[in-house]
């Protein structure tokens, strides 16, 4: 019986049979291509990024330009729609399609930078808590509990109300509020890995503490980190949308999707497209990010699949 020698690695176990193993990279690649959620999420993410990057090129109009003669035109699939404004215009005559594209920029920008701030804060806290344990861990756990006990949306609104709304303020405030998941995940991952043998081996060989943290622990935490990061981008986007909807986020005339919903609210009974279009956009983007994050988790560690 001839066995196909497909890839490197394998051994002979008698009766003319051979067992061959694919490499870890090939395994991951295969899993990625087979995972529908991951693929869909990836495609959505790439599309939105492209839309954001080339918003200026692909938008038919200036998203800020008001034209009161052209206000409240419905989208193309309704009777009075025109191809000049495929997704219609809002109450100030601004083209909805262009605002949608530029809104990609806002959502991605805010989502990404919030996530980065939260990542830095949460990772530092989580790593130190997980690695040092003891009193440091107690202190960080206490901080995490305090953060979770704070009604985040409320506090964010209060701060923004007092300082004044703008993209910068929203990013900083949200970033400083949503680091909890990073801290929790990093802390437990570090704890698990710290107790594993190869860290003890590194310690025994005399490696210093920061060295151990960077070289031995970090690469294994990167998996978890990337998964949490993608999911947190979605969370940040939804939070910013909620804040802007309440009037406590970015200020008009910025084309934030949440703001567009808030502006369209008063007309929603007769012209629901004003809120459905940005809402669907938010839904698709966050869905894509969540699928991507879940897919990454499944692909890098399918045993942990929930």
């Amino acid at each position: 019986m001839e066995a196909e020698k497909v890839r490197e690695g394998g051994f002979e176990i008698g009766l003319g049979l051979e067992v061959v193993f694919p490499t870890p990279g090939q395994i991951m690649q295969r899993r990625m291509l087979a995972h529908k959620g991951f693929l869909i999420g990836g495609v959505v993410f790439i599309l939105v990024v492209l839309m954001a990057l080339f918003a200026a090129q692909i938008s038919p109009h200036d998203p800020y330009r008001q034209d009161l003669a052209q206000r409240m035109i419905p989208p193309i699939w309704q009777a009075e729609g025109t191809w000049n404004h495929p997704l219609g215009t809002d109450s100030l005559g601004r083209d909805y399609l262009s605002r949608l594209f530029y809104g990609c920029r806002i959502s991605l920008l805010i989502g990404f930078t919030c996530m980065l701030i939260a990542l830095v804060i949460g990772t530092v806290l989580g790593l130190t808590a997980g690695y040092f344990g003891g009193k440091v861990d107690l202190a960080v756990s206490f901080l995490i509990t305090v953060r979770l006990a704070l009604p985040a949306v409320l506090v964010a609104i209060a701060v923004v109300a007092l300082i004044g709304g703008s993209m910068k303020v929203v990013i900083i405030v949200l970033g400083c509020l949503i680091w909890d998941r990073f801290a929790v995940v990093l802390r437990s991952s570090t704890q698990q890995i710290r107790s594993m043998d190869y860290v003890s081996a590194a310690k025994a060989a005399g490696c210093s503490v920061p060295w151990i943290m960077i070289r031995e622990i970090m690469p294994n935490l990167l998996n978890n980190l990337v998964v949490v990061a993608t999911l947190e981008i979605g969370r940040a986007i939804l939070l910013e949308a909620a804040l802007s909807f309440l009037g406590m986020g970015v200020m008009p005339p910025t084309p934030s999707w949440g703001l567009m919903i808030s502006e369209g609210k008063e007309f929603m009974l007769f012209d629901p497209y004003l809120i459905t279009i940005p809402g669907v956009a938010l839904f698709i983007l966050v869905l894509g990010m969540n699928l991507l994050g879940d897919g990454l988790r499944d692909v890098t560690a399918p045993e942990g699949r929930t």
Partner: protein
Amino acid sequence: MSPLLEVRGLNVDLPLAAGVLHAVREVSFSLEKGETLSLVGESGCGKSMTALAMMDLLPPGAVRRAERLTFEDRDLAKAAESKMAALRGARMAMIFQEPMTSLDPCYTIGNQLEEALLVHRRVSRREARNRAVFLLEKVGITAASSRLKQYPHQLSGGLRQRVMIAMGLMCGPAMIIADEPTTALDVTIQAQILALLASVQKEFEMGMILITHDLGVVARVADRLAVMYCGMVVETGTVKEVFERPLHPYTRGLMDCIPVPGKSLKGRKLGSIPGMVPTPIGELTGCPFRNRCSRARGECAGSGIGLKELSPGRAYRCLLSPQDCLAGRV
């Protein structure tokens, strides 16, 4: 008198991504009332799967085929799940290997013992409790009535295994299957549990199938044994017959591995069987042991090497004649 359990041509297949895993291949044996049959073999030889197949507790996706599978003259091969559920616990009981995790941590011992009886018989709670106390004492647990209120995590491994045995006996079954009942226990406890199993079997006149990889256990407790390798039965016989004159090269190899107190090993290496077990995935033709057998010939790769029966219950699966078998090592 028909046997308590009769198995002929049992096959268990597990479809996997890599192919079909033939866990059990054409296995046949029978069990009489009151006797202990031991299924012996190394890990992965299919002995546990055989036991699960009889109770129809196979993992989802597994396919069971049998030419004949009868228990107490009932046909089990095509029995519906409701019929099997009525038999499990009531007429046939099974004890598993890991006492530490085999009991539900959220309910008391008493609750789980009584449940074993109450689902099958219409008796009052009090009667069930009395039976539980009776059986706990039978398995050697003192202060039985207070034990009933305890939770599994409050008992040691040995005690939990005794509880498992008591639980298996609640309905007075005709057959008990013990899957490596002592492997997870301390050596000192092992002997006690084995003696307990032997005594309850005798007292309640049950048939017992004892699954193990430990030939020492077999020698102590079993009447007959069936040696399994790679999903197939390769030798059967009474314990005396097989231990005194092992025929199949695999059995002989196993016996060779055991150091015998008194027999001088000076200058001699402890026996071992070279090579590895072939994969159970995919089709297998010929003798599964031939890649490790010092006596393998060309014909061993051919098909249709059946069990040769020397006398009722004594059989082996090899092309060599009994004299040639015995002329080898050991």
